């Protein structure tokens, strides 16, 4: 029960060092931002991210997640860019507005870039446990406290959702009306917010005590139960990815 997308699979992509996957994700985003043609940006998605998602055995959830997030943006980008971007190739006119081919191309290009960024992040999240990602970053110098905040935020959200639901259910059982018009729904929030907020503050204090009792703030070397190892060739792969990334960026400005 977590708020993460991670889907455990026995795949080679899952087995990669989180740092390698993070480098790949950043590389894909940088490439999408630097490449200037629609086919090139789409190629990053179709020839890199989609095959990797398939290899990781997460292709259906990968495509579903991308589609769910991208379509609302696409839905607004195409009419806005189509009608309001500069251009001369008018496809048709609707009153004072003209739909232009150049605008649709810009919308498609922006959507493709969004798709790559989203796809890279989705693939990383589907195949990498957040705590492993943070552990690998802590090993590279990220402060442990910062990593803790990121990981716990993802883990604790479902717990708080469950608590909010329990409070809501108990208020309903005592006759609180939570269904109906906007005003009624807003009014129903008041008896929910106070116990949720106070309960969360009390939890926060207890959690701080529990962490202290488990030596969280202790200075000195810390160890880890899980060992995040580099597979054969992974450091070289990361170096290659960084070189490619720099190459694409350099080409953009040449």
């Amino acid at each position: 029960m977590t708020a993460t997308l991670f889907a455990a699979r026995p795949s080679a992509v899952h087995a990669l060092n989180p740092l390698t996957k993070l480098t790949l994700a950043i590389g894909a985003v940088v490439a999408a931002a630097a490449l200037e043609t629609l086919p090139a940006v789409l190629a990053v998605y179709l020839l890199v991210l989609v095959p990797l998602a398939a290899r990781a055995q997460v292709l259906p959830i990968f495509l579903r997640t991308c589609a769910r997030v991208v379509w609302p943006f696409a839905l607004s980008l195409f009419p806005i860019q189509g009608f309001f971007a500069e251009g001369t190739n008018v496809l048709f006119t609707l009153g004072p507005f003209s739909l232009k081919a150049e605008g649709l191309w810009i919308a498609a290009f922006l959507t493709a870039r969004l798709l790559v960024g989203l796809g890279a992040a989705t693939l990383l999240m589907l195949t990498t446990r957040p705590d492993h990602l943070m552990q690998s970053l802590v090993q590279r110098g990220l402060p442990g406290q910062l990593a803790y905040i990121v990981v716990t935020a993802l883990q604790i959200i479902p717990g708080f959702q469950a608590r909010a639901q329990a409070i809501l259910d108990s208020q309903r059982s005592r006759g609180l009306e939570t269904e109906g018009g906007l005003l009624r729904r807003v009014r129903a929030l008041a008896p929910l917010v106070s116990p949720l907020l106070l309960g969360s503050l009390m939890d926060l204090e207890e959690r701080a005590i529990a962490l202290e009792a488990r030596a969280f703030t202790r200075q000195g070397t810390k160890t880890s139960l899980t060992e995040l190892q580099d597979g054969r060739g992974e450091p070289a792969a990361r170096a290659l990815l960084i070189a490619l990334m720099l190459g694409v960026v350099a080409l953009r400005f040449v």
Partner: protein
Amino acid sequence: MIDVRGLTFTYSGTTAPALQAIELKIPEGQLCAVVGANGAGKSTLCFALSGFIPHFFHGEMHGEVSAAGRSVAGTPLADLAGEIGLVFQNPFSQISGARYTVREEIAFGLENLGVPRAEMPGRIGEAVELTGLSGLEERSPYALSGGQQQRLAIASMIVMRPRILVLDEPTSQLDPAGSKEVFAALRALAAGRNTTVVLVEHKLEWVAAFADRVVVLAGGRLIADGPPAQVLAAADLEQHGVGRTRYTLAARQAQARRLRPPSADLPVTLDQAREFFR
């Protein structure tokens, strides 16, 4: 070894002391239960023994607490962590939130202490077995029941092998069978590893059966201290808001109806009751 000398503590923003002139010595390997009504100062005593008073909860403190050979007030909390463990009632807030399986959650404290990786599986296995969590190692801590989460909180402390373990109502979410297992584990810890265990608990039958010693707090003062059979059978216990074991209650009924002599010692455990009614 715990040594409390003249401890008085008043929380910031309050005027009445939560603890007053507490004198208490608990030797190594002893399982000492603390009982008392709500507001008696039990949780405050737990915080004082584990260093959260004065480091975390601020207020006016007089007297001295030393535990595991260190002055609690003079030692940073982070340094006390490996020596003194604290488990409290609410298991949800004791889960670190940073680990995805029970096994990893138990390892969290070991990782912070810098225990070598090779040593971890053995210690985790031992803690899992002691707390009856076998078979749940790969589950998410958030997918456990309240009772299982409470055992996880205890396992997460036991694994750090503290010299002193302070537990504030650790069985509040456990059923009778689960409570018995936890008490037995604490008993084993005290006897087998020489760990000093301080346990705040309302379940007096279990306290009577497993504790070496019972301390009674009322209004922030220590009002009784001794073996369970002596303290829990004392005539004035109810005046201080502390209940009776069902064995004591049954024996008192028998004495009131003249079925047993009034001079006979009141039982506090099942074995003693068996003798009493024989």
